[in-house]
C-alpha cells in the first residue's frame, strides 16, 4: 500500500495490542497468586514487536495462481502469531506448592505495562491529531 492510515499510525497500534494482551497475562498471574501449581507467564514484548515489524509471513494475501496480485511488503500478522509462545518466569523464591508467582514483581510489571500502554496511547493520539490537522488545512 502506497499510502494508508495503517502506515501512518505505524507500529503504535501493534504495540498497543501487544500491551493489552500482556496486561491480560499479568492480571492472570496476579489473580492466580495463590493457586497451587500455577506457573507465572509473560509475553516477550521485544520479540513480539520485532515480529510485528517484520511481519510473520503467513498472513499476507494468499496466491493460488501466478497471475494473482501479491500483497506488497510485509504485512503485520494476526495478533496471536505476533505474540508467539508465552514464556514462563524463573522464580526467585519458588514456593512449596509449585506456584511461581511473585505478587510484587507481577504488580510492578503490570503497572509498568499500564504506563507504557498510556504512553503508546498518547503517541497514537498525537498522530491522529496531526492527521486531523492536515485534513482540515487551516
Amino acid at each position, binding site marked *: 500500500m502506497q499510502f494508508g492510515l495503517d502506515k501512518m499510525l505505524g507500529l503504535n497500534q501493534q504495540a498497543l495490542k501487544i500491551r493489552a494482551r500482556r496486561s491480560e497475562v499479568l492480571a492472570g498471574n496476579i489473580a492466580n*497468586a495463590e493457586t497451587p501449581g500455577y506457573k507465572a507467564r509473560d509475553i516477550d514484548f521485544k520479540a513480539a514487536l520485532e515480529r510485528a515489524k517484520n511481519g510473520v509471513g503467513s498472513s499476507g494475501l494468499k496466491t493460488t495462481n501466478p497471475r494473482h496480485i501479491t500483497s506488497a511488503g510485509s504485512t503485520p500478522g494476526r495478533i496471536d502469531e505476533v505474540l508467539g509462545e508465552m514464556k514462563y518466569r524463573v522464580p526467585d523464591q519458588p514456593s512449596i506448592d509449585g506456584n511461581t508467582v511473585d505478587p510484587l514483581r507481577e504488580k510492578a510489571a503490570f503497572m509498568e505495562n499500564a504506563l507504557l500502554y498510556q504512553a503508546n496511547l498518547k503517541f*497514537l493520539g498525537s498522530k491522529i491529531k496531526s492527521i*486531523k490537522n492536515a485534513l482540515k488545512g487551516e
Partner: protein
Amino acid sequence: MSLFNVLDIAASGMSAQSLRLNTTASNLANADSVSSSIDQTYRARSPVFAAMVDALGSSPEGIGVRVQGIVESQAPLRKQYQPGHPKADEDGNIFLPNVNQIEEMANMISASRSYQSNVEVAKTSKQLLMRTLSLGE
C-alpha cells in the same frame, strides 16, 4: 478486547479471595463451637484454588482463578474434660474445633491483600479503557 478480559480475570480473583475470607470468617466464628461427639464438631475449612484453564479455552493468554472445592482440615480436634458442661458426653468430655486462630488471622490478612491487588488491577484496566475510548478526541 483483551482489556475487558482483564476485568473478568480480576473479578474471578476477587470472588475467589472473598470466598477465602468467607471461610476464614466462618472458622473464626466457630472457633469455640462445642459439640458432644467427634463427628458433629466443626472443622476448619479452606478453599482450594485452581487456574481457570478449561473455562477460558478460547483465550489462552490470561487465566482467571476459580475455587475448585472446599476442604476440611484433618488436624485432630481438641478434647476437653468438662463434666459440668451441658454438651458433655457420658465420659464428661466435650469436643472443640481444630481451628488455629493464629493461622486464620494470617490467612485473613493474606486474602485481603490479594483482594486489594485484584481491585487495583481492575481499576487500572478501567483507566486504560477509558483513555482508549477517548483516543483521538
